[in-house]
């Protein structure tokens, strides 16, 4: 019996995280302690230990810039790339590290060549920058008719079969779809999609898949070998804890010869890796902190615990706010929720103008940045969970929102609304 108790204790000790999650982790980060960050998803935040390493890398570069750029940086980056590839389970030759998702999306969309009758599909919930890039290529490289949007609504967004059925209707009409762009975890609304099923489905029809996984790495388990996309990108500075900014871009071996960075420089015609490495004189330090971010995570807890804490907190926070505001979350199906949640704003917020006023008021009067958006005729906000957050934070913000609404004079809509919210 004693041996059994001892065994249980040992198992408990092994499985409990080294640090408890929540506010006790806040001092590890550089956020202003008075600032409640319910929007970690937009810009990410790195712990102080990662910033110390960032400064070390920068100082190393300053000690002998020529040595750094000519001899050392590419080796240092190879190591980081290998470590990151192991983490996401892919061949390190198939992965490059870029500045951000814009660079990743642009590299793919501006490299691919299509015939004039071939089409690209995307969904209405695609990230704003992705839509802008698609708009650009539809005017400068392809034609408007070649880029087609599919509308998702409340129903199709949380039902993979219905989503695929809706998509197939469009595919059947067009008959020559070559590429489909979709999210792993969309931005607004924040929904986690079953991309493994979707990738298999599209591959059967010979349609290439470009997945915007900006919010994925560090938030959920990511296994690229298992998912097997054609093109996949994810920002490491959002949920993995390295310093802003860095983005991994995975390109399936078969396509690497076709894909080039939008910036031409010294790697020209050398290799996929070299082309994407040499893009002009730059600071590689934030990329190098990817290793340190992974080290940091290991000191906090194992990966599953990190994923679970954030996932559960997102669900609980969503439910709490829905109850507080007498509204509802966009989905109550946990498999479509990652580490962010979407909650319908209180009833009074029934127009874009009112939503904008509330958004601005929260920033200006309460120092709260709460992304808001309209989806399928309803108005939502998006909250992010994070290891340094606790349920009480969302309680506080929830009350602040009610306070702000009760103090708002919505008749003064004439002022030109600042529309920064577009850039989430």
């Amino acid at each position, binding site marked *: 019996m004693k041996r059994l108790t001892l065994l249980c204790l040992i198992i408990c000790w092994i499985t409990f995280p080294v640090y408890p999650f929540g506010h006790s982790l806040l001092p590890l*980060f*550089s*956020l*202003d302690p008075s*600032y409640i*960050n319910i929007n970690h998803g*937009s*810009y990410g*935040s*790195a712990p102080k230990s990662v*910033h110390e390493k*960032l*400064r070390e890398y920068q*100082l190393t*570069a*300053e*000690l*002998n*810039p*020529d*040595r750094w*750029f*000519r*001899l050392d940086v590419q080796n240092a980056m190879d190591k980081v790339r290998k470590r990151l590839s192991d983490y996401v389970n892919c061949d390190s030759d198939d992965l490059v590290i870029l*500045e*951000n998702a*814009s*660079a990743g999306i*642009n590299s793919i969309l501006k490299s691919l060549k299509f015939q004039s009758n071939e089409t690209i599909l995307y969904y209405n919930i695609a990230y704003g*920058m992705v839509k*802008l*890039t698609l*708009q*650009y290529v539809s005017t400068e490289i392809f034609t408007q008719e070649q880029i087609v949007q599919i509308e998702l609504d409340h129903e199709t967004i949380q039902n993979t079969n219905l989503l695929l059925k809706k998509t197939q209707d469009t595919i059947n009409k067009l008959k020559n779809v070559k590429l489909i762009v979709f999210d792993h975890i969309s931005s607004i609304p924040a929904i986690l999609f079953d991309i493994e099923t979707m990738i298999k489905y599209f591959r059967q029809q010979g349609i290439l898949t470009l997945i915007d996984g900006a919010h994925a790495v560090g938030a959920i388990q990511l296994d690229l070998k298992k998912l097997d996309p054609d093109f996949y990108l994810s*920002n490491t*500075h959002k949920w993995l804890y390295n310093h*802003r*900014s860095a983005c991994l871009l995975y390109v399936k071996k078969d396509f690497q010869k076709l894909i*080039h960075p*939008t*910036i*031409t*420089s*010294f790697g*020209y015609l050398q290799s996929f890796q070299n082309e994407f490495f*040499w*893009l*002009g*004189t*730059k*600071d590689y330090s934030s990329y190098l902190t990817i290793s340190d971010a992974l080290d940091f995570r290991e000191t906090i807890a194992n990966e599953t615990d990190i994923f679970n804490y954030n996932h559960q907190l997102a669900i609980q926070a969503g439910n709490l706010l829905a109850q507080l505001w007498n509204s509802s979350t966009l989905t109550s199906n946990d498999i479509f929720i990652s580490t962010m949640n979407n909650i319908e704003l209180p009833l009074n917020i029934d127009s874009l103008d009112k939503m904008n006023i509330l958004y601005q008021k929260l*920033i200006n009067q309460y*120092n709260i*940045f709460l992304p808001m958006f309209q989806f399928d005729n309803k108005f939502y906000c998006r909250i992010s969970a994070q290891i340094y957050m606790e349920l009480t934070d969302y309680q506080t913000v929830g009350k602040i929102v009610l306070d702000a609404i009760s103090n708002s004079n919505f008749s003064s809509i004439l002022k*030109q609304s*600042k*529309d*920064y919210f*577009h*850039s989430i």
Partner: protein
Amino acid sequence: MNPIEFGEKTRHDHYLMDQDVTYANHGSYGPCPRFVYEELQRIRFEQEKNPDRWFRLTKYTLYADCVRAAANRLDCDFEQIALVDNATVGINAILKSPLPSFTSKPGGTVLCINLAYGSVLFTIEEMVKHRNMKMRKIDIQLPVKSKHDFIQQFEDELKKGDVENIRLAVIDHITSSTAILLPINELTDLLHEHGIPVVVDGAHGPGQVFPQLSLKTLTCDFYIGTFHKWMYAARGCSFLFVRDTIIANQLQPSNTSWGYRPSLSQLAIMTHFHLQFFHQGTRDESAFLTLPKAIEFADSMAGGFDRIYQYNSTLSQQAKTLLEQRWNTQEKDLVPSDMHAPYLKMIQLPDLVDYKRNDDDAVRLINDLIEHHKLVSIILCVNNELYVRIATQIYNHIEDYIVLADAIDKLKK
């Protein structure tokens, strides 16, 4: 406040490079002074307190202020200049944009010179492929005895004909691998006579050319320059100047992002041109924002451009004379003295035991000097001879070049 004492004292007090290393190649990566580096750290830290506030609000006003400072310093209008990471970003944007001269008629050529920076030539090669255009490269023969001879080589090329098809010309202000100061005004005028718009790759221009760079008084259509080479800004701070603001707003950055369709409130403080190049998604733009401190360093701490120019250009000439005498490689200049870059000089190396006169061995020598001699320099192969391109900056003094002389002497035949 008394300006700082240039040379060893500045190296020790104001720069971060390893004190054990002799640094004779400021030109490639332009290490920034401690004063600016600390500002970079301060800005990075500021971002962290409230990232949403920084990325949604604060950074825009700070960027607009920096553009204003840039326009002021380089003597141009706010609407004509945008900050970009580096010259590569600038040249890629211009060459790959749907400029009227590219889109008005199909085909055509881009004129450039063999002395252009390597990645610029690659970019031209890549771009002409996509537009069904051709690259027309003038093979400038060196040495050149006079400025007139240099310009003559351009004229000779244009006399060959097919000039109506040249859509754009790219010339350097100061070449990288040969440290030549081109007569850009005369060349621009010549090219303009034939209706050819001109891009000047001025990576080494700002902070080095005398008199101080004034974009208003130049006549070129586009100028790409850096602040991080010779103007003390942190690495990752350069600019793109477009004389015609209508064209400026038609330029497309290589990466399309949020700036493609900016918001009204963003357009209230800067133009679409600015936002296209600035609002490129989430990234660390701290280096751009060090420009005001870089200007302060140059003006207050270093005592102003004239003082800096006097020191750097004099030391540059002294170092050249010293090295040529030591190695007995006088009279090997590639261009006449009025085409020498003020702070960059090419000195032919003596015959070396283990290094042949080719590009690969030039690179091998650079690396060996870094690894085994604690010496940072840049070796280049021009006309089948090895040259060292020395740079002089306010932290250098003549002893640095004596160290270089000694190191090379050890490798001599």
